[in-house]
């Protein structure tokens, strides 16, 4: 067993769209050790969910295409394993929690059957006779009385549904748990409950966690390492300490993200949102993708903000590294961090 559970190298993913290929993920690289938890943070449309889906090969069949890079799960190339091997990984060794619990559970099948389905597929110690006890145990783990297993999703509240979703995901003790905005669709109080439960489960199960969110607070409470994603690229990567330390150097986008969060100790009178919008993925700028919104933008170094097509070849943005901390920005050299 290698120490590295998940390795992603230069991953590129495109969607076909009416306006030409939409570049959702543009060469991201990161790795995740066993038991480690990583947060992938960014705005809607940054390519976080696309990255997550590609790890389990769940991207839409006709519209999405991996155009470059590789994904290794426990040393094996996910792109090249057979469909049967992939099914053994999905739900068994790697499981996923989806964003919207309201629509992510099959409405016409009981909660018991939905959990039992994944158990019977991956757990050889279980058969139809003794699966009920295990379903009950898992439900209790996520804080749902086992007696409610025969109910249907519509009989549960949103928070309870997300607990069921989590129960399905942890049912087979996965080595990797991918959680795509697990608390976004929930009420704030429920969010806290679900988060603390996930923290507890992570400790108990020793799973690695890839948490996708736009909420820096969520990341701070649960993750060891963090990747900040913007327009399909990881613009800054580091440990929790690296990213949350205001004394350290940061990517302008990270600075902007923190500036958008209300902070009681801050002197500033108002929040400072990042101006502008994420670039159109069918029409990415030739230079730094964040260039058009960046306060430090310098055409000479950051490259053109014109679309790649009109400006020719895209400009390489250098990456500054120190330890685990990496920033993809022309402002810094390795020594600056």
């Amino acid at each position, binding site marked *: 067993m290698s120490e590295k559970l998940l390795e992603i190298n230069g991953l590129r993913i495109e969607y076909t769209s009416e306006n030409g290929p939409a570049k959702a993920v543009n060469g991201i690289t990161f790795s995740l050790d066993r038991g480690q938890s990583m947060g992938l943070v960014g705005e809607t449309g940054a390519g976080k969910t696309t990255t997550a889906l590609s790890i*389990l090969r*769940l991207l839409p069949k*006709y519209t999405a295409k991996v155009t470059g890079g590789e994904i290794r799960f426990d040393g094996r190339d996910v792109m090249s394993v057979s*469909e049967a091997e*992939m*099914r*053994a*990984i*999905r*739900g*068994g060794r790697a*499981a*996923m929690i*989806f964003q*919207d619990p309201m*629509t*992510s*559970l*099959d*409405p*016409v*099948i*009981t909660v018991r059957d939905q959990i039992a*389905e*994944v158990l019977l*597929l*991956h757990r050889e110690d279980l058969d139809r006779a003794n699966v009920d006890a295990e379903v009950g145990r898992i439900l209790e783990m996520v804080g749902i009385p086992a007696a409610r297993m*025969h*109910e*249907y999703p*519509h*009989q549960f509240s949103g928070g309870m549904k997300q607990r069921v*979703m989590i129960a*399905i995901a942890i049912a087979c003790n996965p080595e990797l748990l991918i959680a795509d905005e697990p608390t976004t669709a929930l009420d704030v109080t429920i969010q806290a409950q679900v988060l603390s439960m996930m923290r507890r489960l992570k400790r108990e199960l020793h799973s690695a966690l890839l948490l996708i969110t736009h909420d820096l607070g969520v990341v701070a409470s649960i993750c060891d390492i963090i990747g900040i994603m913007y327009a399909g690229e990881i613009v800054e990567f580091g440990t929790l300490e690296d990213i949350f330390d205001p004394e350290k150097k940061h990517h302008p986008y990270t600075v902007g993200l923190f500036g958008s969060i209300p902070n009681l100790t801050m002197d500033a009178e108002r929040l400072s949102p990042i101006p502008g919008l994420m670039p159109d993925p069918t029409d990415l700028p030739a230079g730094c993708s964040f260039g058009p919104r960046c306060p430090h933008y310098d055409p000479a170094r950051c490259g053109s903000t014109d679309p790649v097509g009109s400006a020719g070849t895209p400009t390489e943005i250098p990456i500054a590294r120190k330890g685990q901390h990496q920033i993809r920005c022309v402002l810094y050299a390795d020594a600056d961090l």
Partner: protein
Amino acid sequence: MFKYIIKRILIMIPMLLVVTFIVFSLISMSDVDPGRSKLGPEASQELVDELNHKYGMDQPFLIRYFKWVWGAIRLDFGDSWYYDHPVSVDIAARFPNTIKLTLLSIGIALIIGIPLGVLAAVKQYSWADRVFTTLSMLMAAIPTFCIATIGVLIFCWKLHWVPATGVVNGWKSWILPSLTLGISYSASFLRFTRSSVLDTIRQDYIRTVRSKGVRERTVIWGHSFRNSLLPLITITGMMLGGLLGGAVIMESVFVIPGLGTLVMNSINQYDMPMTMAAITMLAAMYMLIMLVVDILYAVVDPRIRARYTSFKKKKAPAKAEGGAA
């Protein structure tokens, strides 16, 4: 669940009353004098009046309707004006044929339409999808009686595979009428199944099921199709009316002694009790099938079922589902 079924059966009673009232009023609009038309122009007015009195035609419309309802409740539909024997004799002889034809056709339509519809959806954009959708568009657009006529021409008189008429030739004579009606309606089922499965297959919960490592066949049939059943059942209910019309046509094309041909004949013979009884039976059959459709709906959708299950018996739905599966 039981409560729901009882409720649905109870609703049928006023509905049947309204339908029979409308049909009874329409038929009573006829200005034909039944006594005169039966006895012919030479008969004396006295005899005609006597016969009309026997038929109850000298009474007001509403009285006649209530008398008819009172009889119908006791399953006494009166005597035929044309044959002078109880209407129930003909109804009993013909009803099974209509039921057989209708159910066979629905069965064939479902057996052909649903699997092909799912296949077309799963293999969207493939040649199979194109062939099936084009064929089903053609079949759905061409009226049933045209398809039936072409079928008779080819399979009965050119190839001599099956007999063209009647129930006298045993099971073989059912093949062509039920296949024609079934295939003609399978086209609509195919189209609806395809669009419905395409709709569910894009849902979030299907992605969840895939993320569990479920094999594709189970994803399609166990989850996507199961959810598609709801709109499909609704559509089935909506198509029943047309299917009933189709059955009447088939009886006419293949000379099957059923309720449809009985209505046609009795209209021609100004035989009001017979017409009323046959139309009422057709309407009752239609409502019964609609009832089955509604119950199926509740069986498949736990959300509908929950509305009719009392709060105490929370585990009852799971059992009901197991029993129906």
